[in-house]
């Protein structure tokens, strides 16, 4: 294979396990997980609380080290201790922007900090970058002077996305980015995220338990249960022929609004009863 071509996954998780040890207790949070994510794709990571999806996110971000197994970025082994340029490549957007944004910092200062830490652009350039970033996530550039408390939930989450983008990452880990928002705001934020991905050729690891969202934004889906990867395929396949009972249960729990969806869901549930 030549250099970094299209066939090299941007993210390659090879046989990764993570065991947490606390006194006598050993918790296997992840067990021999292997995953590949191609550039520009959105991989949805699905599972209930305790399934290991957040542990996976922490491993990707370098917050935890795998007990065994390795992670590769663009074909290169990710070391245990990440250098600043490596940390820049993988960014995080958390569920609750009210707790992930510093309330004492203006929006502009929060974005500036990311640029300062990674030494992106010169002094004047950074100021302009802040405005451009805000506009890129659909906010007016004068929002830079505001504090998070003066923003709505959807606006705050847009700021959190702008802060992640400030680092010019290749991969963005989105941990339930819209589950705290109401459906109208959720739809707008999801649309913004989808457009950003296409425009910037970003790769998303999208952690959620809402398969309705997954259906409309993800290219591939990885389903976790008790630390194991139990099902992985492209989004269409998961919805046409979900193999795992837990996947079916997740599909049956999605709130629906039309008879068409009801018919689809019923046909999936009947298959469950057959098998």
């Amino acid at each position: 294979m030549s250099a970094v071509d299209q066939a090299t996954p941007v993210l390659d998780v090879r046989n990764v396990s993570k065991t947490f040890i606390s006194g006598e207790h050993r918790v296997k949070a992840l067990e021999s997980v292997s995953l590949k994510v191609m550039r520009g794709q959105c991989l949805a990571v699905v599972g209930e609380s305790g399934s290991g999806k957040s542990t996976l996110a922490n491993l990707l971000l370098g917050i935890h080290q795998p007990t065994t197994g390795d992670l590769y970025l663009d074909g290169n082994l990710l070391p245990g201790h990440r250098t600043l340029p490596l940390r820049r490549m993988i960014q995080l957007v958390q569920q609750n922007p009210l707790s992930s944004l510093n309330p004492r910092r203006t929006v502009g200062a929060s974005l500036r900090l990311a640029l300062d830490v990674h030494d992106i652009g010169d002094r004047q350039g950074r100021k302009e970058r802040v405005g451009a970033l805000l506009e890129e996530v659909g906010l007016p550039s004068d929002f830079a002077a505001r504090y998070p408390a003066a923003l709505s939930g959807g606006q705050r989450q847009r700021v959190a996305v702008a802060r992640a983008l400030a680092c010019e990452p290749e991969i963005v880990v989105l941990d339930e980015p819209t589950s705290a928002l109401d459906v109208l705001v959720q739809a707008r934020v999801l649309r913004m995220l989808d457009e950003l991905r296409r425009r910037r050729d970003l790769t998303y690891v999208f952690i959620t338990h809402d398969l309705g969202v997954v259906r409309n934004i993800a290219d591939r889906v990885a389903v976790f249960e008790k630390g194991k990867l139990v099902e992985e395929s492209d989004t269409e396949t998961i919805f046409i022929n979900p193999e795992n009972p837990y996947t079916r249960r997740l599909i049956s729990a999605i709130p629906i609004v039309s008879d068409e969806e009801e018919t689809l869901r019923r046909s999936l549930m009947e298959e469950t009863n057959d098998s």
Partner: protein
Amino acid sequence: MTALLDIRDLTLSFRGFEGENRVLHGISLNVARGEKVALVGESGSGKSVTARIILGLLQEQRSTRVSGAVEFDGRDLEAMPAKARHRLRGTDISMIFQDPTSSLNPVYPIDVQFHEVLKRRDPKITRAAARERASEALRDVSIEDAKRVLDSYSFQLSGGMNQRVMIAMALANEPKLLIADEPGTALDVTVQAQTLHLMRDLVERKHTSVLFISHNLGVVREFADRVYVIYKGNIVEEGPTHALFSDPGHAYTRALMAAVPKITGGGIPEIPDRSESFSEPIVVHPATEASS
């Protein structure tokens, strides 16, 4: 038959530094006995303040101005003395809030809190008798090991378990009206679906009226008999659930429906922030036999 809850032309304003800020512009809604009614709208639409007015909690604040009629069980709540109104809360009217874990007191075990709740109806009830009643109530929400749950603190239980405890507590005094404000939004989708089914079965069995508040039309579709859609302090559409979902008449209702991610796919729709059409007059679907 008269409605159990009848709200007519309700307005609410908050007084602030810059004059009055009107939040509800004269809404009317009713809930019949044994009926499950949903009030759906986005954050800031006025759905939660409506619930607080029914409970009489907002009127206690000096900066609020409320007008209109709120009748419960044939009595005018606004004309009722504060004490009598207080007695209704937790007995004939009860409420479930969005986040179960923060609604329960972390300092007392569940059985002590159950005892408090039951004392609202029967002040002389002993701790042992309350425990007995609590076990029954927990069995109603499919909690088998009631003893363990009663001896636990809320932080020792899962979110789904706390939500069931909240439902059991809210229904323990056999209220006539249950107000559920976005129950389960903080939970996993599977747990949310489970608790909603459980709550529906239970209120149907006990013949409790429910006012269900939510931002997600998809969640209320399987729960409610009738739906009101609220936008910026005005009801924009109302009707029996089936009629409203099969033929949404108001542009805002259609936007709310479009916003729910579809399992049949199709991507994420573009939804405008505001639109002239959202302010069009109310669309009313005629009541069917079952819901009149």
